[in-house]
């Protein structure tokens, strides 16, 4: 049960961080967009790099504090395929779980609702195929 309580607390914090970025800088906390724009934006990349630095540093420190177990290494080909699909898909579809999920649903955007239902659907089909049908 503790897992779900922490999940809920984590969710509330995700929402709070996203709202704070919007209230403060007027920008949406869409991670795929921030990461891509940090690399390509000629100007205005500074706040994106600051956010990403916090994200990477916070993830590193907190994984230690929280004692997250190391994962069993997986096939690099699977990770490369998945990474490419996530990179291509989030640029074509203008967002990921944070931009369309956390922020988009909060903004009651129809586009984001469609996006969330779509990536959850294809994600579920992918897990069904890889974990049950083909294994």
């Amino acid at each position, binding site marked *: 049960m503790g897992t779900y309580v922490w*999940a*809920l607390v*984590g*969710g*509330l914090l*995700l929402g*709070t961080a*996203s*709202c*704070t*970025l*919007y209230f*403060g800088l*007027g*920008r*949406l*906390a869409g*991670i795929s967009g921030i*990461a891509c724009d940090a690399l390509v934006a000629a100007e205005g990349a*500074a*706040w994106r790099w*600051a*956010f*990403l*630095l916090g*994200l990477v540093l*916070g*993830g*590193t420190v*907190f*994984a230690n504090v929280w004692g997250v177990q*190391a*994962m069993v290494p*997986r096939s690099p080909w*699977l*990770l490369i395929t*998945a*990474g*490419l699909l996530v*990179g*291509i*898909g989030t*640029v*074509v*579809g203008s967002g990921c*779980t*944070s931009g369309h999920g*956390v922020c988009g*649903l*909060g903004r009651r955007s129809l*586009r984001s609702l*469609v*996006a*969330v239902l*779509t*990536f*959850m659907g*294809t*994600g579920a089909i*992918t897990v069904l195929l890889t974990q049950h049908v083909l294994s």
Partner: protein
Amino acid sequence: MTTSTPHSKPGSEPTAPSSPIALALAFACGLVFAAALVMSGMTQPAKIMGFLDFWGMAQGAFPGRWDPTLAFVMGGSVVVTLVGFAWASRPGAKPWLAEKFVLPTRVQVDTRLVVGSALFGVGWGLAGYCPGPALASLISGGLDALVFVSAMLIGMLLTRLALRPR
């Protein structure tokens, strides 16, 4: 929604906030975002794939092998953003440290949105990583996270290049 002034090129974004206080706030938001992802279990791909495994509900008494954790995370976050974004759209509202709120210009549901989201979902289901948790795991997640993030950034850059208006 967007009114163009004589000084702003169409499609160009308003001046991005770059004051030290704005950068510090962005850094703090990233920090809290990462902490939230870690404590909620979202940096563990097994939790994501366990959620997407809806067939797992049929295995044993409910919820079976299905892992509902992500639903709690999404539920908790959207409760906050629903209130927050509603408050920020009150008349006369302005960001604390920027000229104005910047929102996506696309408002129509189109093929691009659905195709892109569908591709993203396949990658998400394959590895259990989406951009936020993958970046938060960049150092703690070992070689796996590093390989995934590298491929993801290459995919983003190539796609951005290919879709660039000519």
